[in-house]
């Protein structure tokens, strides 16, 4: 178990290092001029030189990357002339635009994305698994067809289209809900949920389609397995057969999938955040891209990658924990 965890962790770290190197290399070696960007408008050649040496942009790219890594683990001191600016670990640098530490930008954006992702996932699992099970267990063909139609529509609909329709109906026409603004959970839980209800719904409607389809397929497959026949042959009631012997097997792969999806939704809900004006990490990235704010772009993508990789590792461990056949050795 410990050995497995260690190996999994080392694997994750290797992938993360590769990821960060690629990201850093891509953005700092790209045809953009980082020093000029950092210097801002009305930059003088003197000032440019100072910025360049302060940020270490005059050094080779490999050194830059290593000092970037060093900053993450041990912090970083930026000296421009006599003044020294301390950036404690984990240091991802300062925004070219606002001069804020990237870490503080991230720490204000992450709760927003996490709130959005958690709620949306909970809702979509509930909707997806529920409707998937109902269609299989009721054994009604028309329900099957209806589910299939909804699933196809879910695949065919971009989230911004759903968001737009929801906004038009509920905020603009019916005016049942406010145009969402993010209220922290700690500040006012009721308002937090009320404002996030529409974004959750928009994401969940699409995500749920996939879960419904998977639930249906998995349940059908498990129902066809021999051990289910055994359970029936030994006189167990249909409810018991389903509850004890079908659902466990059918939903196990779904749980692991959901763990990865959580990270996926958290890091990829850019469009939802944009549509509903939620200041999550997606919005942050889009903003940074607009102004080529390199430290923020790199910080956000590396963070998103970390979340994603950790979620993958977590999913593997979770899978091993709930399936007795998988041994961690």
């Amino acid at each position, binding site marked *: 178990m410990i050995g497995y965890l260690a190996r999994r962790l080392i694997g994750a770290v290797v992938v993360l290092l590769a990821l960060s190197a690629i990201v850093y290399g891509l953005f700092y070696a790209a045809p953009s001029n980082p020093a000029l960007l950092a210097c801002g408008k009305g930059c003088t050649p003197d000032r440019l030189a100072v910025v360049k040496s302060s940020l270490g942009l005059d050094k080779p790219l490999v050194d830059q990357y290593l000092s970037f890594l060093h900053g993450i683990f041990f912090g970083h001191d930026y000296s421009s002339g006599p003044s020294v600016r301390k950036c404690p670990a984990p240091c991802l640098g300062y925004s070219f635009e606002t001069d804020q530490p990237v870490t503080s930008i991230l720490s204000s954006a992450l709760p927003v994305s996490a709130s959005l992702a958690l709620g949306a996932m909970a809702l979509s699992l509930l909707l997806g698994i529920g409707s998937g099970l109902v269609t299989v267990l009721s054994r009604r063909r028309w329900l099957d067809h209806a589910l299939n139609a909804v699933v*196809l529509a879910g695949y065919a609909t971009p989230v911004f289209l759903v968001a737009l329709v929801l906004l038009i109906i509920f905020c603009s026409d019916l005016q049942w809900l406010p145009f969402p603004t993010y209220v922290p959970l700690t500040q006012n839980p009721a308002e937090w949920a009320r404002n996030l209800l529409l974004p959750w719904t928009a994401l969940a409607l699409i995500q749920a389609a996939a879960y419904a389809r998977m639930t249906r*397929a998995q349940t059908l497959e498990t129902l066809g397995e021999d051990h289910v026949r055994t359970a029936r042959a030994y006189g167990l009631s249909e409810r018991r057969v389903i509850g004890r012997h079908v659902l466990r097997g059918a939903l196990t792969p779904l749980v692991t999938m959901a763990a990865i999806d959580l990270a996926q939704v958290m890091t*990829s809900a850019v469009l939802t955040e944009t549509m509903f004006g939620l200041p999550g990490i997606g919005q942050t990235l889009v903003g940074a891209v607009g102004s080529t704010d390199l430290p923020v772009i790199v910080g956000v993508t590396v963070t998103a990658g970390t979340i994603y990789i950790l979620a993958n590792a977590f999913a593997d461990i979770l899978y091993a924990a709930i399936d007795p056949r998988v041994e961690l050795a």
Partner: protein
Amino acid sequence: MTVPIEVAVGSDLPPPPLSRFAAWRRLRQDKAAATGMVIIAVMVLVAVFAPVLTALEGQDTTTQHSDLIDSASGGTPIGSLGGVSGSHWLGVEPQTGRDLFARLVFGARISLGVALGATLLQVLIGVGIGIASGLGGRLVDGVLGRLTDLTLAFPYVMFAIALMAIVPGSIPRPLILAVVIALLGWGSTARLARGQTLSLKTRDFVAAAKLSGAPPLRVARREILPGLVTPILTYAALLVPANMISEAGLSFLGVGVRPPTPSWGEMLSHGTTWFRPDVMYVLVPGGALFLTLLAFTLLADGVRRTLDPKNVEVAP
């Protein structure tokens, strides 16, 4: 945008071959798939003949008709339904007054072209790497496997956005869009191809081919590749709408095609601020996008059902 793999792989046993003719006939008989095909055909024709269609209408994508918008109200088109008229079949854009029909039909070129191009690239890269990974030794498989993991570990949308921000402006944007979408999205195809290859590799017919003295390339081409066609085709059919959504999303966020090139996503993103005074500006590109996506999804589902081994009647 990710597409779950499990929908593509029905069973790990190779299905008895369905002749191309039989598959096509069955697909045509599938009402939903046939509807999808008709819509796609219309869209493709529209995209191909976009210049002819706009010439028929007598408009182009860039001319701003300031006489057709009400600048007092911020630029709402004059007239009902967003200024629909005999010379502007779908009305004009708010604020700029550009012809909506012209922008829609040229937008179809971007939408379809990027989605199909990206899918083709994804399949080529994915199948190539998947087969190499599956047939190669431990080292090849290990390296390619990690590479695949890496692309799958990329927060896809984030990277696409970030990448689109730094690519040089000299290369045509639609091409870059397709390449970026494909480069970030081949991982799942590779994984599927690798899985199928590994499963086929354990079949004794591959061993028999080796005993017959077949060199590796012949094994890949004759024994493995035919077994990949069905799952990859089924999966690729789902990739097309997924890629289309990616393109629309990136353009929606303003990192896709550059103005004044029209794209449905870009039109929609402007449309969101205009849906109160001019709902046509949302409905036209939104409807076109939804219809095309739905058509591709219907076709993909039809392909899956047609090629699903569980649906194949086995000759006695």
